[in-house]
């Protein structure tokens, strides 16, 4: 039962270090003894069939769930038990499986919201919102290719464009770690590759560690530097894409057959 957790070796000092993470709901072990690490500039894909524990892992990392036991260190700092807001302040950006943006605000205002929050400027009662941090917002929008739509309200955008706006918002606090929950779900195949290319480029250029879950195997094996595989709450494999592709356990999980 309790085989030693699979350690995934990394070369540099990790941005995120997760050690022996456990979470149970009632009698069900949703996440069991999961350990991994991500370095700056690295894209790590977390994959596994439905119910493998990916979402639970994500929700613990972003502070929505507290782990039963285990360590989570962000650049050496213990983040277990911190609220989503506190974790964001430490430099963790997020995108959601189903996009979450402010529909009645324009694209630029959405990004400015994140920038104002990062700058601690939200409590002003009489200043006009949107006059400050405009260039910064436009720079972020240019990075994700949304500058030409800056004036449009988010409520009318196409889904793929919303994903880009989310990415720009997630980058607003100059994150060290980016958590992307199924970043390409609901997008056309061409858009998927483009979005992940963009994420990879930004991660490398700004030395951001990226952890993402994904169901599209072309995206996973094409874009991730490393892959970890979860099954029924446990880490069953990890390594470079070609290693994982040839791993017998992974093949068994995805293709069925004997363990």
């Amino acid at each position, binding site marked *: 039962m309790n085989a030693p957790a699979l350690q995934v070796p990394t070369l540099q000092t990790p941005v995120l270090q997760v050690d022996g993470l456990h979470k149970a709901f009632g009698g069900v072990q949703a996440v069991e003894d999961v350990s991994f690490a991500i370095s700056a500039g690295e894209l790590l894909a977390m994959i596994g069939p439905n119910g493998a524990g990916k979402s639970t892992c994500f929700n613990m990392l972003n502070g929505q769930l507290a782990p039963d036991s285990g360590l989570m260190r962000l650049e050496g700092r213990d983040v277990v038990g911190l609220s989503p*807001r506190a974790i964001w302040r430490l430099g963790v950006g997020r995108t959601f499986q189903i996009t*979450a943006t402010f529909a*009645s605000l324009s694209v630029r205002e959405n990004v400015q919201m994140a920038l104002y929050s990062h700058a601690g400027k939200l409590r002003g009662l009489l200043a006009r919102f949107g006059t400050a941090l405009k260039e910064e917002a436009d720079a972020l929008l240019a990075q994700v290719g949304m500058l030409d739509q800056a004036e449009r309200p988010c409520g009318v955008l196409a889904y793929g464009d919303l994903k880009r706006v989310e990415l720009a918002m997630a980058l607003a606090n100059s994150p060290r770690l980016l958590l992307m929950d199924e970043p390409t779900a609901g997008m056309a195949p061409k858009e998927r590759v483009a979005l992940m290319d963009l994420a990879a480029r930004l991660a490398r250029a700004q030395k951001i560690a990226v952890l993402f879950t994904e169901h599209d195997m072309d995206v996973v094996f094409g874009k991730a530097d490393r892959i970890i595989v979860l099954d029924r709450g446990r880490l069953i494999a990890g390594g470079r894409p070609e290693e994982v592709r040839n791993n017998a356990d992974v093949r068994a999980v995805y293709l069925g057959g004997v363990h």
Partner: protein
Amino acid sequence: MTLPSLLIQLLNGLTDASSLFLVSAGLSLIFGVTRIVNFAHGSLYMLGLYMAYSLIQLLGRTPLSFWAGVILAAIAVGVVGVVIEMLVLRRIYRAPELFQLLATFAIVLIVKDTTLYIWGSEDLVGPRAPGLTMAFDILGKRLPAYDLLLIVVGPVVLGLVWLLLTHTRWGALVRAATQDREMVGALGVDQAKLFTSVFFVGAALAGLGGALQIPREPANLDLDLSVIADAFVVTVVGGLGSLPGALLAAILIGVAKSLCIGIGTTSILGFEIDFSRLVLVVEFVIMGVVLVLRPYGLLGKPPAVVRAAGSAPPPLTPPRWPTALAWIALLVIAPMISDDYIAALLIDIACFALFAVSLHFIMGPAGMISFGHAAYFGLGAYAGAVLLKRAGLPMEVSFLLAPFIAAAFAVLYGWFCVRLSGVYLAMLTLAFAQITWSIVFQWDSLTSGSNGMVGIWPAAWLSTKSAYYYMTMVCCGLGIAFLWRVLFSPFGFTLRAGRDSPLRAEAIGIDVRGFQWMAFVLAGAMAGLAGVTLAFSKGSISPSAASISQSTDGLVMVLLGGVETLTGPVVGAGLFTWLRDGLARETDYWRAVFGLIILLIVVLFPQGLVGGLKVLLGRWRESRA
């Protein structure tokens, strides 16, 4: 308190619980399937009482005719429910939920005046139930047989409805629709028929609840709002959509109320406490406690699937300076070119405009619906009056302190309210407003109780009509300008962000609840300013300033003008005050006329007047382009 009298009070409580349960069960059923919070449910109860009164008179005083009268009254009310559903609600199922609320409120007004027209304004005392006029002797106390029968009715009806829901195809559809309305529609079920039938059953239950009270309670015209408040509390305490929850809550509240009456004045730890005074408050205290401990009620579950209702609210546009200046100029010269009546009306309008704008501030951009905004309006008015008359402070000081006192209460109430959302939040605001109202209503030594306070006049330099007119315009104008300014500030945008997507807001470090709380306090302060300004213009103040109908007036103003626009609440307040004033002088039935106007607007302009005009203007421009 002796054991027998305690027992009698317990049984009394159970008797009251039965009717309360019947109304609440109907409300809960209708909400579950149609997602409409039916403000008119208390009116249906009231109709049940009146109809039972007339039917029993018509049919004669035999046991058979009594019960036939009660049953027929319930069926007749059910038919009224069907008419309401088919004529009005069916047209607005796709409208925003606030508009549905406004429509049901219009129905309250229409039913009230129709009842007034048919039955008159006198309380009608019904007959006792033939064959059940004897009383039982319980430990030396007497309990009417009819009351004992009523105790049984609640659980029996629960059982019958339960059988209907679990053993019929109709029941299966109702349960399915309660879980996921769209899915049931997608499976090819005729929603219109289902909704109509649910309305029939829900309305008939309310009618039955009313009709059964005929031997115990005189039929009167105030029942509609008092019963709906009780029914809201019961459904929320029990959990929206849970019938056993409604019964449990009805019993809890019925018993708590009669125990308060039974205990009377008792000394606890050396303090004399008059429990009978708590009767008006106790249910709201229970509701507050339950909602904080169990946000979805005793037996409720988190709300069912509700899919996003299409488009997001449009971005707000700030007012243009030329338009604003034109209005200011008009208001400055208004008293010079018109009579005192117009100036007095404009003072009223200005105060209600600030009240409506402050309500819109939390309803629109912050996304928190309040059914109890009058609490802060009333608190501001009373704070000014009490500081002036009881503390002997100068008028200017009383006036300036009043908004801060209203804000202090908003700090307290808001802390609880922002922990909830949606209908539950609305109900909790109603609870706090009702607590405030009953404290004001009962604290004779401080507030003069139900008589209200008189002689609240402004200082000498403000005592002329035109001086007070200009002061009102300045205070209310600045208040409105301040709230509008805030909406375009980082704070206001943060509120809108928190409304649009709480998930995203938290993920970029925004403390959504904290901002909502602060918004609550700002809105409370401004409502308080509106209240104290109006109080000093009238020279008197009565508890109705903090009443449910004052709260609903505010809602109507905001919704009439349009919740998604900036100027909507001001237009709504102006139109409401002017119409009410004008109609009240023309006809005794101004409420019904007003209700019809509201219904017309709701059906024709689902975005409110200002929103609707904007859409029309847009279409006209497009057609020319």
